[in-house]
């Protein structure tokens, strides 16, 4: 199923610049708003993708970053974008799958079409799910990302050992799904066991404190999955200070430059990279295709992952997935 979608997506990648060629001649072009989840390198790389596609089509993009993750911060910015009255599409990463439905519906009522990137509303199934109004959901499959992390960790450990999850907050769709996928993958190895899960509330200090305590409780802990940069950073710090650097594997999600720095210093041992540039670029292409009357856009495009380790981090094929913000 997802392969079919990928093929369809690829067809669009190739086909859409064809429309783009005629779009240069001062025609009526769509105006696009870009509303990320929060100001961070992941969305900044996504913005690079959005801007690259917009430049290719000669489009204008209005970008607004919330400074904190949360519906109460994102909604007023969304409302303001709708109130401008000149936008045709809004590309957004809804920060809550339930609470952002009503604000996005208000945008639809104002005649704006919505594409969600990275995160989704409802259950992410825009065909049969409870929410069907967005054009498409372009983003990593986080359950799959968790599975990839789990299998990569299992491979590094030879399929044996106790592992621990350092999560961020309860109720965030992406990190909950990563945790779920990770548990699914680990369950496939009879010699492996998930011995706990803690919530760092996005604070490296808390993550370090919790990990230090878990290392005391489980002296034979073999690996840790940090579901985001802060969790992995704190977990890695505790591991290194316990003299277990290299002995306990720490997997970090999201390839920020800082995460890569931590990889090079041996604080984390593996980094799972998403492809935010692809998400941003494809979303603008989809908007353009829809503007041109294309009606068969895939409603779900999983963008995939790259696994970065100390061995392959200098390989240009891999290094291009590092979230590099100029």
């Amino acid at each position, binding site marked *: 199923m997802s392969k079919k979608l990928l093929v369809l997506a690829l067809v669009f990648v190739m086909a859409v610049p064809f429309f783009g060629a005629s779009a240069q001649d001062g025609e009526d072009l769509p105006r696009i708003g870009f509303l990320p989840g929060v*100001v961070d390198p992941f969305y900044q790389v996504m913005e690079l993708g959005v801007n690259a596609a917009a430049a290719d089509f000669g489009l204008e993009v209005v970008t607004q970053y919330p400074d904190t993750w949360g519906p109460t911060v994102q909604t007023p910015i969304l409302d303001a974008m709708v109130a401008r009255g000149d936008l045709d599409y809004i590309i957004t990463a809804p920060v809550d799958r339930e609470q952002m439905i009503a604000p996005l519906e208000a945008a639809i009522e104002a005649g704006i079409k919505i594409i969600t990137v990275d995160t989704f509303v409802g259950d992410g199934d825009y065909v049969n799910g409870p929410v069907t109004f967005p054009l498409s959901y372009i983003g990593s499959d986080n359950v799959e990302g968790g599975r990839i992390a789990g299998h990569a960790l299992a491979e590094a450990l030879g399929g044996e050992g106790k592992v621990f999850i350092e999560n961020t907050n309860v109720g965030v769709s992406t990190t909950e799904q990563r945790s779920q996928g990770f548990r699914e993958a680990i369950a496939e190895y009879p010699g492996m066991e998930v011995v706990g899960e803690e919530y760092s509330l996005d604070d*490296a200090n808390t993550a370090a404190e919790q990990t230090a305590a878990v290392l005391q409780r489980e002296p034979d802990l073999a690996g840790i999955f940090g579901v985001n*940069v802060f969790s992995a950073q704190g977990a890695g710090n505790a591991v290194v200070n316990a*003299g277990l650097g290299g002995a306990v594997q720490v997997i970090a999600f999201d390839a920020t430059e800082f995460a890569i720095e931590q990889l090079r*210093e041996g604080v984390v041992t593996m980094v799972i990279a998403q492809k935010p540039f692809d998400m941003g670029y494809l979303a603008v292409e989809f908007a353009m295709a829809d503007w041109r009357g294309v009606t068969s856009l895939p409603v779900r495009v999983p963008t995939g992952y790259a696994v970065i380790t100390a061995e392959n981090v200098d390989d240009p094929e891999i290094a291009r997935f590092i979230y590099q913000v100029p």
Partner: protein
Amino acid sequence: MALEATSEAPTTTPRRTRSFEQRAILTVSKIWSWLFLIVLIVFFSFEGTGFVSIRNSQNILVAITPILLMGLGQTFVIIAGGIDLSVGWVMGLASVVSALVIRDTVTLLAEETERQGLSSALYSVFAAIGADASPEAFAIILGFILGVGVACVAGWINGVIIAKLRVPPFIVTLGVSFVARGVALLLSGGNIVGGQPRLLRDFGNESLFYLVRGEEKAFYILHRPELTGNDLRLLDRILAWPVVIWIILAIILGFVLRSTQFGRHTYAIGGNKEAALRAGIPVDRHLIRLYILSGFTTGVAGVLNTARYSGGSSIAGDPLLMSSIAAVVIGGVSLFGGVGRVSGTVVGALIIAVLQTGLVMMAVEPFWQYVIVGIVVIMAVLMDQARDLIVGRAEA
């Protein structure tokens, strides 16, 4: 402790009329947080796997560093009847500023050195102050000074607006908090500021003493034993540098509060501002100094955060704000002012860290910690009120 303050403040109930029950309640209200900490430690010693160990004791001391440092300045501010809500984001700002200064100074020094010294005016300035000998150390010191400095400036702004313009501290510090947050995000672009020198990371994570378990010569001072592989697991760091710093600061500030005029003025202002004014205490100037002090300890928390994680993070302090205030309140500082001591805040911070660590070791659902901390905070306020009923506001 607080008794010094009483000489300048009116008493409501004469000392001799207290009954046995009153004295009992008074004693309990003074030492209950210590008792509670001891009960917690005993409980987790039996229930928490790996709780009783040198390493865990050190982990807890490291863990309280940011909330305790933020709480130290806060202790003075709250005793004087104020509050500083800006410490969370000011800590993030200090962290970002120090990281930017250190990273850019190291880069700049490397570039200037490459240009072969003599031709560069900038390099000769560096050389004149000895920065070429150890560029990393110079950059770190400069980063720490500017990081702590920017936090002191935030504190000064808080203090001036509160003291001179008579705006309630709650509002002023909230406003400064937003400004600090905005500036920190603008400077960092929402990223963690990496590219820090190795020396900085060592400062944030290495320690004064080292203990190698199960070895003949097991104790090392300052010098970290060369261990590799599995032997590294045997190494315990005793008194990490951040811990050394908070211990020194806590001792100094404890002394200042208990035994100096500065401390007596702080109690007097919190006990009764009018009386303090009439007694000739320069209330405005003192308040400004207190908020600068709060900025200072918060700034130290920020630069130590940069050192520990070898990166400046704008959001590092915000999640810790409420814990730091809780530590102060649990430690017996009255939110109405006039009462409290530094050792109480240390105990308050320890209670929070012991709970967090102990519950993880018991593998209890992590959210229980908030329930328990919440109950402890309310208990602290009740103790405060019980004390007030007996001895009256100013004398406690």
